[in-house]
């Protein structure tokens, strides 16, 4: 009874580099990556807001799948729980409550296109720089998925200060939202 059942297929060693080859994982990753890319492009090009939100579901589900492939089981499941189960539902709820209209929306493809492209490029640059700088050539351990208990231990020991800071930040955002929404 090992918890590593999600890693069904095992691979051999690459004769050229000596590194480990995981065939099934590579195929699964390729399928997910292509699906995610296509959905992401469709998400920003479609003129229907509800369709955009539904494409976002596919992208986020793919992200959860990639996390699980990397052995970050808890993060993957949390991705499903928080993003698909809560945030997208709120998106759809908001769209349907305010618009509820059908077909393409003319106002979607607006004047902020260049701004959005700039923000996107900036986020990509910062994330790529941070990731490359952090990991360099380090190979992640793929033999065993990370256990939820270990994640919990780390959050409440080594990373307790960032964790608390984020909690306070979220609380502030929550209160701020209520204050803004009340309007009195």
């Amino acid at each position, binding site marked *: 009874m090992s918890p590593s059942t999600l890693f069904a297929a095992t691979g051999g060693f690459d004769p050229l580099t000596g590194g480990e080859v995981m065939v099934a994982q590579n195929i699964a990753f390729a399928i997910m990556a292509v699906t995610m890319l296509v959905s992401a492009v469709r998400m920003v090009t479609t003129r229907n807001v509800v369709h955009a939100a539904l494409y976002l579901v596919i992208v986020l589900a793919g992200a959860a799948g990639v996390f699980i492939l990397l052995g970050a089981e808890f993060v993957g499941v949390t991705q499903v729980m928080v993003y698909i189960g809560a945030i997208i*539902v709120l998106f759809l*709820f908001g769209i349907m409550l305010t618009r509820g209209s059908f077909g393409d929306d003319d106002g979607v493809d607006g004047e902020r296109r260049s701004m959005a492209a700039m923000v996107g490029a900036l986020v990509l640059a910062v994330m790529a720089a941070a990731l490359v700088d952090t990991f360099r050539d380090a190979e992640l351990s793929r033999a065993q998925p990370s256990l939820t208990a270990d994640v919990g231990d780390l959050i409440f020991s080594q990373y307790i200060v960032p964790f608390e800071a984020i909690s306070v930040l979220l609380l502030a955002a929550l209160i701020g939202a209520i204050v803004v929404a009340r309007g009195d």
Partner: protein
Amino acid sequence: MSSTILAIELAYWQQTGLRALLGLVGVLLPAGILVYLFLFKMMSFMQSRLGPMEAGPYGSLQLLAEVGKFFQKEDLIPAAADRVVFKMAPFVVLISTFLLVLVIPAGPDLWFIDIDTGIFLALAVSSISVIGILMAGWASASKYSLIGGLRAAGQLVAYELPLVLAVMGVVIQAGTLNVQGIVMAQASGEIFGWGGIGNPFILTQFVGFAIFLIAVQAELTQPPFDMPVAESELVTGYLTEYSGLRFLMFFIGEFATAGIFSALAATMFLGGWYVPGLDPTDNLFNVIGPLVLIGKMVLVAFLIFWFRFTYPRFREDQLQQLAWKFLIPLSLVNIVATGILKVVF
């Protein structure tokens, strides 16, 4: 991962095929049992009538007749509907159901996936069905459907919190998210040093059990929480425009989810496939485990359907107040109390 089931050696692809087949059984069997036993028979008896009696002995083949009826119906799609989203919506709901059945173990070696996040995964995938319901409500291009979808989303988001928080007490007590681990914790548990019946968590987590069942009732949009499909106001809410096979898929999804949530409650609070007096690692449980689990599932489902057929519908504001002002604070108190007692004992 054990590659033998009852001493039969199986290749990986054979195991996968067997799992897919058993997954189908795991979804359809609870749905069939619940529909026949409770929707056809128990509801009829509670209303002083016999229910279906013609098809087969005591109407036991009525299920097949119903499925046959749905197969014959025309697959109607409203002219103004968003066809792709409309067609996909029932599948999204069924995906959620099929993923949900994966986490439930039916014996020491009988499980689909035995992963570390177990119960957390179940709660996460159960929330996918909300998207299917919203898709159905929006794509139908009907006011009834849209309002029904919105009500369903509001209700499901509100009751997901008590559902998750009620499970927290069990997780704290068992010390693991793994469902098999929760069963083992109950099987090997002791009540003040007496291990005669293990320690089914319903004894210590009764508040959690009650909150879980109420939240499940709301998650299934069953009466008294059936505002999203309130037939006197909304025809049938987000299901209004569906017919034939697609309606059947929503129907199976609802009752299969009811069965799987009942099995989940039985696993977390009643000891799952374990019966007291035997060694939990005994190979015998690979045979009787599924039967024990189904028995306990029917017991929990009986409670759910008893409430369903007894109580009148909540008003929308009462429904939201019950979740936010009563169930969520109560489940938070339950978590704090469980945490303190866990440290003390």
